């Protein structure tokens, strides 16, 4: 059984390699590695929870499991925009941590080969979310490091919770 899995996994990983889900915030397109994406759902009623970083909007019900949702606009320190029926939630799973990303719209899945990307000029300036920049026929896509999106968020959350004690 485990032997079969190996054979099944390899092609699957191959098909996922260098593929990016492209979504847009304002006029800019971003890409996240497709291997982290579980599904894309429409925006749902969000239950707010107080005392969270403002970019964590609360939790939504994903078929019985509660997942936190992050407004990526707010995360990138952009002006928040009201949600409408094209607003999407990209459900990502990074190391068993499930998170919903609220984005304005999802456009397509693109293959961007490593040769077509350049490192982001200074990764510390913008919060370090954008690690590489992909050049495609349809324009420039900022490629996000999903792990950092989550890890940094966690750092800030725990930092926020630590403050009252100090």
């Amino acid at each position, binding site marked *: 059984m485990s032997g079969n899995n190996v054979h099944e996994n390899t092609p699957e990983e191959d098909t996922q390699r260098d593929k990016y889900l492209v979504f847009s915030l304002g006029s800019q397109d971003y890409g996240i590695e497709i291997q982290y994406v579980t599904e894309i759902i429409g925006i749902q009623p969000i*239950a707010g929870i*107080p005392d969270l970083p403002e970019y964590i909007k609360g939790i939504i019900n994903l078929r019985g499991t509660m997942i936190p949702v992050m407004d990526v606009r707010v995360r990138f320190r952009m002006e928040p925009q009201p949600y409408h029926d094209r607003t999407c939630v990209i459900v990502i799973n990074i190391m068993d941590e499930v*998170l919903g990303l609220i984005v304005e719209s999802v456009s397509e899945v693109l293959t961007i080969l490593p040769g077509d990307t350049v490192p982001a000029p200074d990764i510390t300036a913008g919060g370090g979310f954008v690690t590489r920049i992909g050049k495609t026929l349809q324009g420039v896509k900022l490629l996000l490091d999903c792990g950092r999106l989550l890890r940094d968020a966690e750092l800030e959350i725990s930092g926020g919770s630590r403050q009252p004690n100090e």
Partner: protein
Amino acid sequence: MPGAFPEDSLLELFIFETMQSLQQLEDSVLAGEQQDSLHPEDINLIFRIMHTIKGSAAVMGYVNISALAHVMEDLFFYLRDRPEAAYDSSDLSDLMLQGIDFIKLETVKIRSGDPADGDAAALAEELSAYLQLLKIRTETSEETDRRQHTEVQPAKEVKTGSAEPGRYRALLRFEEACQMENIRAFAVIHQLDETISCTFTYHPDDIIENPDSADVIRRDGFIIMLETAASGDSVADFLRNAPYVCELEFDKLHTAGDDVIETAVQLSGMDAERLSLADTPQDHTDRKPAGPAVRDKKSREAASPPAQQTMINVHVSKMDKLMDLIGELVIAEAMVTQNPDLAAVHGPLDNFAKAARHLRKISGEMQDVVMSLRMVPISATFHKMGRIVRDMTRKLEKEASLVIVGEETEVDKHIIEHLSDPLMHIVRNALDHGIEPPEERLAAGKPRSGTVTLEARHSGGEVIVMIRDDGKGLHRDKIIRRAAENGLLSRDERELSDREVYRLIFHPGFSTKDSISEFSGRGVGMDVVVKDLEKVGGTATIDSVPGAGSTVTLRIPLTLAIIDGMNVGVGSARFTLPTNSIVRSFKPEQQDLLTDPEGNEWIMVRGSCYPVIRLHNLTAAAVSASPVEQGILIMVEDDGRSLCLLADELLGQQQVVVKALPDYILNSAGSRPFSGCTLLGDGSISLILDIIRLTSSMNAVSGQ
């Protein structure tokens, strides 16, 4: 689903079984030590368990475990054959417990995926040396025995009989139409010999050889005289349930010199000897006619306890999945039966209502069944404490025994897992700080040996676990002094009630013990208890009478999965309050409301003053506060502390399935006032308020 854990299932089964066997083993060893000798049944049990562990460990390739188990098995093989062996039960227990610990440690390693690389060679050697020693000792004592031939019997009796063996007389009558009474009687004897360790004689004694004995049995009944350490009831039960038995007279004989016994022994003088030979199997098969032999086997199957065959081990993850599904079902059901579209239907909904009721009944029952699946008796957790009491009393040179009450009380498995650590800490504390050394106890006019009582019982939707010791109790002044040193006192000490003072010992970093012992005194312990309990929604209180001991009372909810909740609405947000914490709800009047200079709100209700929390402040979008008179106040109480919550409206009571908040949220400050969340009938999310945390945080505020 069946293939969900394919590669691990064997390993998991091994770990599960081994852990279970080890617990059983530990219990038997400890019981044996307490009675100062091992019961023959226990020896048998230990032997069997070691044999099983040896076998399965060898199959799984854990050579070190299997090697050690082999030596332990050898030891008990010898003890089983030679119950007269003069062993010192305390030495034996020490060795056995060391062995058990080793295997346990290795099993834990295996479970966490580490290589089982422990080396038990030294221990194995020690065990076999002990066995050698036993053999030598026993043989020499046998020599002396042989010389004083006549005294051998009673001398042996003293050594082997662990509990006082009871003598019983049983008169069996078989069903009238059963025929071949002698064969039936033989079947009974045969089973008795296999099931209960006892020595016995019976009358008539020639049931196999003499077909006429059937007539004797039919006329006079079949008499068994037996001597066993097993309880009389269990023997009587066994005999009563034996096949074809329709009548049983069962008497306990008090003195060995009873007339009946003497006649019985006379009657079957030769028989006793034959019976002792009858242990060898060929003895039975040779003489048994083919037909009855088959029936004999059948009846043995029937007589074996059915409980073992009807048990089935299920992986917890499957149970959790089932639980989740039932939760979804309950929500889905509410979505259907309370569907807003129904309001648009014109005309009566009688049939729909009827069907909905039926559905609710079934889903309710399913919920109950699934809940009961998760319930396990607390006994295993309690018995683990036996080991702690033993180890600690030895090291601390104190004497104490463990008394267990209500071990059959059932608690959700998930909760039991969280109960073990707190219990351990409390028992350790009781032994270390509570129970005095024997001399001190005697001086105080108490029995030399202390008692730690573990008691569990149900009370409403909660389980109450009490850990009582009859030690020296808590010292109020000492606690206050230590608390003052650590800056834990927020109020004048004279204002504090005893309970409040005792509660201080649950504070992190609090320890009154001056010398740090191996077991407790580092100041970690009691605060861990509270933290662990909070995880499962439990609380701890402590009562104490100086000089007479202290009692720690743990209150734990029966289950975490489903609670009775009251849904309230605040703006567009929904909250759920556990119904059992609600005292009452009422419309507030503006004139009852007070505001202190810091802006904290209070309300006067029937002459008492309660803090008010506006739930609006707990919503993310900070709903603008409406005038108080338009809202509704819900008074909640936990552990004597009350407060009022202001909401916009009550939405109704409902059984809700508790869902965990995502870890992501749990790690943040925002999750503080919430214990979880749930889905309402319309699919919206409601946050479940953690009343315990709310009330205790209010107390901290008011205490300052």
